[in-house]
């Protein structure tokens, strides 16, 4: 891709991101579309988030218990599981699952609408596709990904509890009390901010890629793959950048 095309694409992406977000405070509001998207993104993703989070929590707890037992520090399992899940793993795992299920769906649905001239039809009818298609998807991601992350965090901690108590034979009370001690503002804030950023990124990237689909079935495959891959890479990069900034802003020493 030449530089001119790259800059043009970035400019289009920037415009979509801003206009999609601004659409939330400008009439008309597409409540029905937003609720439909929320249902698809939230209720539809819940079962997979529950399963993935449970096993991530159990695997993490298992790894930590095995290692901490060697050092005689098994009582720290709850603390480390709590910090890891709330600040880092919970938001990232939920975002990755969300990308695979919801982001891919957004890109392919919008891509198919482009190829089937449905987006052009909206424009001919005088409907702004940005407001009708992009804003509801951004809004639903901004609401549902944080909600899914909170639920996923809780389930991961439960998974960790199961391993700590029933496999590693630790005290359940100690596990929960050490997690409760980690529920301080800094940790909760760090874990709560990330899903909003990730949700916005996923929705913008997948909507942009979907709406830029060209070239039939092969083009649709290409744009869906690109949407998922770009989102995953951006989540990981954004996670590192956010972690660095949050550690600095919240006063953690490294």
């Amino acid at each position, binding site marked *: 891709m030449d530089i001119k095309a790259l800059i043009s694409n970035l400019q289009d992406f920037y415009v979509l991101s801003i206009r999609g977000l601004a659409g939330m405070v400008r009439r008309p509001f597409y409540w029905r579309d937003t609720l439909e998207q929320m249902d698809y993104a939230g209720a539809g993703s819940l079962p997979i988030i529950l399963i993935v989070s449970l096993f991530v929590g159990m695997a993490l707890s298992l790894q930590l218990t095995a290692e901490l037992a060697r050092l005689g520090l098994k009582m720290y399992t709850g603390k480390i599981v709590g910090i890891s899940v709330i600040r880092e793993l919970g938001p990232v795992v939920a975002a990755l699952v969300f990308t695979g299920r919801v982001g891919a769906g957004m890109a392919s649905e919008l891509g*198919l609408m482009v190829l*089937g*001239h*449905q987006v*052009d*039809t909206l*424009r*001919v*009818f*005088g*409907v*702004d596709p940005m407001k009708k298609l992009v804003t509801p998807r951004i809004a639903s991601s901004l609401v549902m990904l944080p909600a899914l992350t909170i639920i996923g965090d809780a389930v991961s901690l439960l998974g960790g509890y199961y391993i700590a108590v029933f496999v590693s034979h630790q005290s359940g009370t100690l596990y929960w009390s050490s997690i409760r001690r980690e529920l301080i503002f800094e940790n909760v804030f760090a874990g709560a901010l990330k899903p909003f950023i990730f949700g916005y990124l996923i929705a913008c990237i997948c909507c942009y890629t979907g709406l830029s689909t060209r070239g039939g079935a092969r083009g649709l495959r290409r744009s869906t793959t690109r949407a998922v891959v770009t989102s995953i890479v951006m989540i990981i990069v954004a996670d590192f950048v956010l972690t660095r900034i949050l550690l600095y802003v919240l006063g953690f020493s490294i």
Partner: protein
Amino acid sequence: MILFDKVSFSYGSLRVLRDVSFSIGFNERVAILGGSGEGKTTILRLIVGLVKPDSGRIIIDGEDISEKSEDDLRPLRMKFSLVFQEGALFDSLSVKENVAFCLREYTKMSEEEIDLKVRDLLRIVGVEHAADFMPEELSGGMHRRVSIARSLAACEPRMFLYDEPTSGLDPVNADTICRLILELSRRDRGFIVVTHKVSDALKVSQRFIFLKGGTIIFDGAGDEFLRAVDPDIALFLNEVRLGTS
């Protein structure tokens, strides 16, 4: 009046239209013919401002639309009713909801009024029995007819634009669509139909524009078109001659 003044258009490095000029009145019945990739559909997309020309001017009702923004183009688009190839129905909505789309979007009609209007429009195009169907349950011909009903609900268009309305349809369905196109053009509302099927174009149109190599090689009435000696046009006319022989 639609006026194209030396309009050129390219998709990337592929030049589709070269200095194309013509004018079409809103009450004319025009067929734009030509082979695949000759820029027929592009002309429709240029008329409603879905794409912008590389050079030249497109003037609709005295207004140059070539440089207009998306917001400024909205009122202009309401003068036309564009029916895309394959219908372009919203596949997440039922037939009823597709037709009601613009009524919900732009009017303050109650649900009962919308329901009555939708049934009336579906009756006009002859698919009232399919109101609760989803687009994937419709045949090709029904798809086009629902799409026409939806475009009628959108506005009171001054002109209809049809993109390959009969392609892929059996002769019976193609004939139904042709009759519907003629029916809708009765109240002094013209249309532009883009097609590569000369037989269908001859059934509905008075004026014929033929595109070849990005330029217009014929623009005239039906009888002149049938007598045209250009070898490219003659190839197209063979379809009709074979059909009648």
